């Protein structure tokens, strides 16, 4: 992939496809060129992000009477080819028949069924009943090949996408083929397991159900799922993702199919972040550790904060969250600077973990540290600063947005001495135990909003903006609400009326007021769709 310099405009040459002339860029992969033309060509092993293997022979085209895999051919001047002629279709059908000869009758239990490329090609191009009259070759089933993955070697159609992925993208050659011919089997390389941090991508790119995700395995059939486009909140990279969910429960996260932000890849850890959404959550406001009604919680804040507002606004501290969206942090910052005129504004974040790599992942585990910084006017204190200020008794009240504030036991003990500690958090923690008022917050998969992502790719070549857009896949539990909404309500009881109907309204205000977000885009409407009817999958 060309990443830095702009590609020069390629020379266009005339290619004759099924008797019709087309102008195609010279030197381009023929399969890609045909697909761009809208030709419907079946293929298994080709993948735009991987090298060409031409092992499946499914994309055959007829050139001068012989069948050539188009993925291995480049566009050249005067090329004449057949792509939809009966002979070519028949050749492809025969290839498909070969592929099906040893494929087990497994659709009923195969997790890929419904988004299986083999199923799709059979329906699109074959449709003939079976003609086999010999035993299928038996290969190992249910092989535990890695931390996250189970291999069913019988289902494998030997396209080698996973092998190439491990070699080329993950740079960890974990998978190999062994034996030859009928008995060629996918297996792990000697002394290796499929344990690289991107291993689950092999499940996505597997055209059949040979590699399946242990976590997703047998949970639900893919066609029953609904897909919502969102952004991964696992690290600062902010990869685009599709959240697959049904009936308020998230089942998996996969990279979107369109060749975009993260090039169809996602890291294993990122895919598992959905679990935190269903984890133990705060569902009701707490006042002094006791569940309370919404109005009672807000009244408690008002009652305890108002004396302070009159006396010493400098002793109020506000903590922005590196896990909260841009809109949330913008609201928090506005409250801190414009209304409370707080003396101290901090940023709660988690320290870098050193897990970053050149592919997607970043060292910074906070999804939106950059966005929080962007909202700030001036420097933000760190959590060490917060601890110091607490030790120095500079604070009388603290308003924390987000779950990321991790304080030592000693500091937490000092929180007790404050007049008011308000925490907007989604999960119970040591901090919420100490807080006077806790407001339950919605998580990223439950809200609309944007985050600022810092992936290398975002900075370099892709048209996608630096701001990722989250869309709600599931309903927040109980009385949980988005941070911005809590801040609006707290503002309202304290006498500030901010008329924001939605996160979009907050976003527009933020874009107007904060130069950092001047080029941010809200992103189009991508409706939640049921995978069953989301067009042809596989």
């Amino acid at each position, binding site marked *: 992939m060309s990443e830095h310099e702009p590609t020069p405009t390629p020379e266009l040459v005339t290619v004759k496809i099924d008797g019709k002339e087309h102008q195609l860029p010279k030197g381009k992969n023929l399969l890609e060129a045909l697909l761009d033309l809208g030709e419907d060509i079946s293929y298994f092993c080709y993948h735009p992000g991987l090298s060409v293997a031409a092992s499946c022979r499914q994309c055959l085209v007829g050139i001068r009477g012989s069948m050539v895999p188009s993925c291995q051919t480049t566009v050249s001047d005067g090329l004449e080819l057949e792509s939809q002629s009966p002979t070519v279709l028949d050749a492809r059908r025969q290839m498909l028949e070969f592929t099906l000869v040893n494929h087990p009758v497994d*659709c*009923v239990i195969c997790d890929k069924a419904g988004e299986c490329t083999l199923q799709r090609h059979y329906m699109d191009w074959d449709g003939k009943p079976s003609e086999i009259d010999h035993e299928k070759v038996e290969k190992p089933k249910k092989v535990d090949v890695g931390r996250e993955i189970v291999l069913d070697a019988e289902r494998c159609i030997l396209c080698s996408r996973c092998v190439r992925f491990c070699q080329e993208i993950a740079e960890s050659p974990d998978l190999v083929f062994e034996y030859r011919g009928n008995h060629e089997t996918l297996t792990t390389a000697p002394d290796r397991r499929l344990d690289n941090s991107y291993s689950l991508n092999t499940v996505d790119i597997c055209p059949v159900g040979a590699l399946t995700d242990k976590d997703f395995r*047998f949970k639900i059939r893919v066609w029953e799922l609904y897909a919502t486009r969102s952004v991964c909140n696992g690290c600062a990279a902010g990869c685009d993702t599709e959240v697959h969910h049904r009936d308020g429960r998230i089942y998996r996260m996969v990279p979107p199919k369109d060749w975009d932000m993260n090039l169809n890849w996602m890291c294993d850890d990122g895919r598992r972040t959905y679990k935190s959404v269903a984890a133990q959550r705060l569902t009701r406001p707490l006042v002094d550790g006791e569940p309370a009604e919404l109005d009672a919680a807000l009244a408690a804040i008002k009652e305890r904060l108002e004396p302070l507002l009159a006396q010493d606004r400098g002793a109020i501290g506000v903590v922005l969250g590196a896990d909260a969206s841009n809109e949330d942090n913008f609201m928090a910052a506005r409250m801190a600077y414009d209304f409370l005129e707080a003396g101290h504004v901090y940023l709660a974040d988690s320290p870098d973990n050193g897990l970053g790599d050149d592919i997607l992942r970043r060292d910074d585990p906070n999804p939106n540290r950059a966005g929080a910084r962007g909202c700030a006017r001036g420097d933000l204190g760190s959590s060490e600063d917060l601890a110091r200020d607490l030790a120095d008794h500079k604070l009388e009240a603290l308003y924390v947005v987000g779950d990321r504030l991790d304080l030592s036991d000693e500091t937490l003990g000092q929180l007790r001495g404050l007049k008011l500690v308000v925490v907007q958090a989604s999960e119970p923690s040591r901090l919420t135990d100490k807080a006077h008022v806790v407001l339950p917050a919605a998580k990223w998969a439950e809200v609309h909003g944007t985050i600022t992502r810092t992936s290398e790719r975002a900075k370099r070549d892709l048209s996608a903006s630096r701001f990722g857009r989250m869309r709600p896949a599931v309903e927040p539990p109980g009385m949980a609400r988005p941070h911005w909404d809590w801040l609006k309500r707290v503002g309202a009881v304290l006498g500030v009326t901010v008329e924001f109907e939605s996160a979009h309204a907050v976003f527009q205000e933020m874009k107007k007021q904060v130069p950092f977000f001047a080029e941010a885009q809200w992103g189009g409407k991508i409706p939640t769709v049921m995978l069953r009817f989301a067009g042809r999958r596989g």
Partner: protein
Amino acid sequence: MPARTKVVTVKRGLWENLYLPEIVRGLGVTLKHFFINTLGPKSKRQIVTIDYPDVVRELPERYRGVHRLNTREDGSVRCTACMMCATICPANCIHIEAGERENPASRDIEKFPQVFEIDELVCVVCGLCVEACPCDAIRMDTHVHMPPVEHRKDAVLEKPELMSRGTKSIAVDGGAGPDWRDKYTDLGSLTQIYRPDHIERDRERPARR
């Protein structure tokens, strides 16, 4: 054969206007039924009511009754939780939760339904689930219709109850091997080759991605 039209009408004359003749004629029909049904020979009586539940009507072979789940040779459930029935069900009355068999024998199917519930009150008895089952697991040929229940939850049939009506199935899923054709003599149109013009139709089909 072209259809023709026919004018239908009924004339009204003195006979009709007198009320009584037609009333008597009508009474003749009903009283004929009455006397045949009370005094007539048993063979001629026309009473069609069935003294249900003392007498139960013989249900036809295709009658769609309460569901049942078939079993394998070892007595375990045939269903593999593939969700075909739940997917095609227009009423969404089938609830399946899949599970993974612990340590299955080498080539056994490792997926099975942990929970298999059918809400017979929600069921519209269309029979599509039977048609959609690729394992011959679910069937509606019990010839039993859903008995009335006192509580709604009683109408939710669970796996043990569904399996209690099950029998061993002749179908072998998961690949019976190359001799599967010999096992079944009644293959019907199985070996029939599909329409020969499918290549042509493939070409005419609009391209899609």
